[in-house]
C-alpha cells in the first residue's frame, strides 16, 4: 500500500496535464508612436489550471536595431519579498526547437539554442518567492526608445520583442508547470517620424558587449578649445542617437571603454580587456620582425596598416597621437619582446599614479587604448584631416565610425578597415621579398579537453589537445583564490618552446610560443596546472573557469579551441 501511494505521488509530480499557465507580454503605452518615443512593455503570468508557482524564470529577446533599452523595473506588488534577477546579453538570438511549438515555452526550455546575432539582445528574468507568485500582476516592466528603422536593415517594427522559453515551478512540491503564451512576439505599428531632429552614430566594433563603450561629442573650437557637449553609452547595437546638434557646426566624436571609478585612485577596467592581446597577436609581431632593415626595424608586412599601428607599443607617450591623429609607426624588436613579456607577466610594475612602467597595451593593467575614427579614415596611413570630425546637416544625419584597441594586432576585438590602408609608398614596400605576417581573419576551430579533478587532495587541471601545427597556445584561467592556492604548472610542450605562466591574484595566464615559428606545441597534455585547496572540498566544479583559450598556427592563423 505504501509503495502504491509512493508511486501515485511520483506520477502526480511527473505527469504533465497540458497547459498550466501562460506568460503574457504587452505594450502598455498607447499608440500612435513616433521615432524617439518611449514605450513600456510588461510581463505577467496568467493562470490556466490552478498553478501556484514559486519560481518564474523566462528569457525574452529584443531587436536592438529597432529598440534602445532605457530601463527596467520589477513590480510584483503582492510578492514584495521575492528574489529577482535580470541577466542581459547582447548579440544573441534564440532558435526554437522546431519539433515543438515556439509558443510552448516550457517545452522550449533547454531544447532550443542561442546563436550569435548582433541585432538581438537577450534578457533572462528570474523571480523566486516563498509564497506563490501572484498571477495577473505585473512581474516586470521594461522601457524602450523606438529607434529609426532607416539603415537598420528592417522594413517595419514587427516582432521587436520575442519570448523564448520559460521554466516555472512550485519549489515546495517540486512541480514543474506547462507554460504557453498567446503573445510570443510584440509588433509595433503606426510608427511615424524620422531623424530630422536626431543624429545617429554607428560604431563598428566586433565586441559583443557594445554598451561598455562610452561616447563623447565635443564642439570644436580652435581658439578657446573644444567643449564637451554630449556624453553617454552606446546602445546594444553600438549606436547612439543624439539631438541638439547644430547644422553646419564642427564636432568631434570619440568612443572609449571607460573604467569603473568607484575608487578614483584605482580605476577598474572590465575583465574582458585581458582577452584582447593574446598569443596570436604576439606571434604576428614576431613574424613581422623575422625580417628587418639595417637599423633593426621590422620590414615584414601586415595585411592592414592599422595592425602595424597596433603593434607599435614602445613609442614614448609624448609621441602618441593627439586629438585622434594617426601616428607614424615603427615596429621593432622592443615591441615584440614587450608583447611577450606582457603575456609572461615580466614587465616592470606599472605605477598608475606616476605613469612609470606604462605600455599602451589594452588590458585591465594599462587600461583601454581606444582608437575611434570615421570609417573611411580608420586605419589609413595618410590622413590629411582629423579623422573623428563631422559636420551634421539635414542631409547628413548618420555617421559611421570604426573602433579598435591598441595592441590588438590580429583585430580580434577591433573593426577591420575598409581597405588595407597603406599609402603608395607602403604598397610598394609590401611587394618586396619579405616574410608576411598575414593572417586568416576567420580562425580555425579545434576541440580540446580541459577539466579539473580532485586527485590526492590536490586540484589538478589538465589541458589535453590533439591539435598539431601550433606555434603557440594560450589559456587564461580564473580560479577561486579563497579556496585554491596556485601551486605550479607542469609544461610538456616540447623542448624548444618558450613557456610562460603569469599568475596574478585569482587569474592565471599560461601558454607557449616558439619565437621563430618553427617548432610546434606537443600534443597530448601540454599543460597540467596544480592547485592546493585551502579548505576541505568534496569536488571541484566551478573552482576554475576558462577565458581565452586559443592557439596560433605557424602561418599565423588563430585557432579557437572548442572545449568538449
Amino acid at each position: 500500500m505504501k509503495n502504491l501511494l509512493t508511486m501515485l505521488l511520483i506520477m502526480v509530480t511527473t505527469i504533465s496535464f497540458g497547459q498550466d499557465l501562460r506568460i503574457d507580454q504587452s505594450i502598455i503605452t498607447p499608440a500612435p508612436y513616433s521615432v524617439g518615443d518611449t514605450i513600456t512593455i510588461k510581463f505577467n503570468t496568467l493562470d490556466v489550471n490552478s498553478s501556484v508557482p514559486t519560481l518564474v524564470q523566462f528569457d525574452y529577446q529584443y531587436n536592438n536595431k529597432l529598440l534602445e533599452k532605457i530601463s527596467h523595473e520589477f513590480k510584483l506588488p503582492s510578492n514584495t519579498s521575492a528574489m529577482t534577477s535580470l541577466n542581459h546579453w547582447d548579440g544573441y538570438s534564440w532558435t526554437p526547437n522546431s519539433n515543438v511549438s515556439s509558443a510552448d515555452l516550457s517545452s522550449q526550455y533547454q531544447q532550443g539554442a542561442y546563436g550569435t546575432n548582433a541585432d538581438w539582445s537577450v534578457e533572462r528574468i528570474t523571480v523566486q518567492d516563498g509564497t506563490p507568485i501572484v498571477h495577473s500582476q505585473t512581474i516586470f516592466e521594461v522601457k524602450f526608445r523606438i529607434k529609426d528603422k532607416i539603415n537598420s536593415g528592417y522594413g517595419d517594427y514587427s516582432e521587436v520583442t520575442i519570448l523564448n522559453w520559460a521554466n516555472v515551478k512550485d519549489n515546495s512540491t517540486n512541480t514543474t508547470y506547462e507554460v504557453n503564451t498567446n503573445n510570443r512576439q510584440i509588433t509595433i505599428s503606426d510608427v511615424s517620424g524620422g531623424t530630422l531632429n536626431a543624429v545617429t552614430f554607428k560604431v563598428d566594433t566586433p565586441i559583443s558587449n557594445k554598451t561598455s563603450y562610452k561616447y563623447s561629442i565635443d564642439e570644436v573650437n580652435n581658439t578657446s578649445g573644444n567643449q564637451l557637449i554630449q556624453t553617454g553609452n552606446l546602445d546594444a547595437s553600438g549606436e547612439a542617437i543624439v539631438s541638439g546638434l547644430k547644422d553646419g557646426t564642427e564636432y568631434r566624436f570619440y568612443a572609449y571603454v571607460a573604467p569603473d571609478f568607484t575608487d578614483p585612485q584605482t580605476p577598474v577596467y572590465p575583465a574582458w580587456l585581458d582577452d584582447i592581446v593574446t598569443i596570436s597577436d604576439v606571434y604576428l609581431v614576431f613574424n613581422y620582425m623575422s625580417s628587418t632593415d639595417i637599423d633593426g626595424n621590422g620590414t615584414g608586412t601586415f595585411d592592414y596598416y592599422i595592425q602595424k599601428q597596433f603593434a607599435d607599443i614602445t613609442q614614448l607617450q609624448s609621441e602618441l597621437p593627439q586629438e585622434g591623429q594617426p601616428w607614424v609607426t615603427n615596429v621593432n624588436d622592443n615591441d615584440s619582446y614587450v608583447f611577450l613579456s606582457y603575456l609572461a607577466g615580466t614587465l616592470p610594475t606599472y605605477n598608475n599614479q606616476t605613469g612609470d612602467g606604462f605600455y599602451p597595451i589594452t588590458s585591465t593593467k594599462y587600461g583601454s587604448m581606444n582608437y575611434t575614427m570615421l570609417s573611411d579614415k580608420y586605419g589609413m596611413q595618410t590622413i590629411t584631416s582629423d579623422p573623428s570630425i563631422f559636420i551634421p546637416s539635414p542631409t547628413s544625419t548618420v555617421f559611421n565610425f570604426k573602433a579598435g584597441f591598441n595592441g590588438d594586432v590580429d583585430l580580434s576585438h577591433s573593426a577591420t578597415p575598409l581597405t588595407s590602408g597603406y599609402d603608395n609608398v607602403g604598397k610598394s614596400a609590401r611587394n618586396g621579398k619579405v616574410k608576411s605576417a598575414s593572417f586568416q581573419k576567420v580562425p580555425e576551430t579545434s576541440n580540446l579537453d580541459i577539466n579539473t579533478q580532485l586527485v590526492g587532495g590536490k586540484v589538478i587541471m589538465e589541458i589535453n589537445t590533439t591539435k598539431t601545427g601550433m606555434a603557440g597556445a594560450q589559456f587564461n584561467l580564473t580560479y577561486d583564490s579563497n579556496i585554491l592556492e596556485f601551486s605550479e604548472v607542469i609544461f610538456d610542450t616540447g623542448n624548444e618552446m618558450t613557456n610562460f605562466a603569469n599568475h596574478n591574484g585569482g587569474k592565471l595566464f599560461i601558454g607557449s610560443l616558439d619565437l621563430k615559428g618553427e617548432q610546434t606545441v606537443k600534443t597530448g597534455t601540454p599543460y597540467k596546472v596544480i592547485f592546493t585547496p585551502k579548505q576541505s572540498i568534496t569536488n571541484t566544479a566551478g573552482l576554475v573557469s576558462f577565458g581565452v583559450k586559443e592557439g596560433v598556427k605557424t602561418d599565423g592563423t588563430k585557432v579557437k579551441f572548442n572545449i568538449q
Partner: protein
Amino acid sequence: MKKVIIGLMFLGMLVACTQDEYVVYEPIGIVPETLQIVEPVGLKLENTFVSDKVSVNVKLPSDGTYRLKIKDIIGNLVSQEKLSAKEGDNILSIYTTSLEKSSYTVELQTEDGILLGSSVFVMLN
C-alpha cells in the same frame, strides 16, 4: 602481566582509530528534501539563486566517471569537472566565485557525452 595489559590497551586504541576513519568516509544516505530527485537519474540544484556556491545532487545510474559542465548562454563551456562518483545520490558543490556574474546552465554528462540532467542557475550580484 602489566605489559600485556598496556599492549592490549594500545591495540584497542589503534583499532578504535581505524573505526573512526571508517565512519568518516562512509557515504551518508540521507538526501535533504530540497535535493531529492524522484527520477532514477538526474541533477538538482538546491537553489536557482547562487552567491558563492550551491549544493547539487547528481543521481547516477552506476559507479563511474562523469562530467559536471558549466555552460554560458551560448553553450560555451566555461568550467568542467571530471569526477568519479557512486551509483545513486551524490551531494556535491558548484562553486561560482571564478565565474563572471551571469546566469549559467550546469549539465551532468557521462564520459560519452550523454546528458543525464541539467539546470539553470542565476548568480546574485
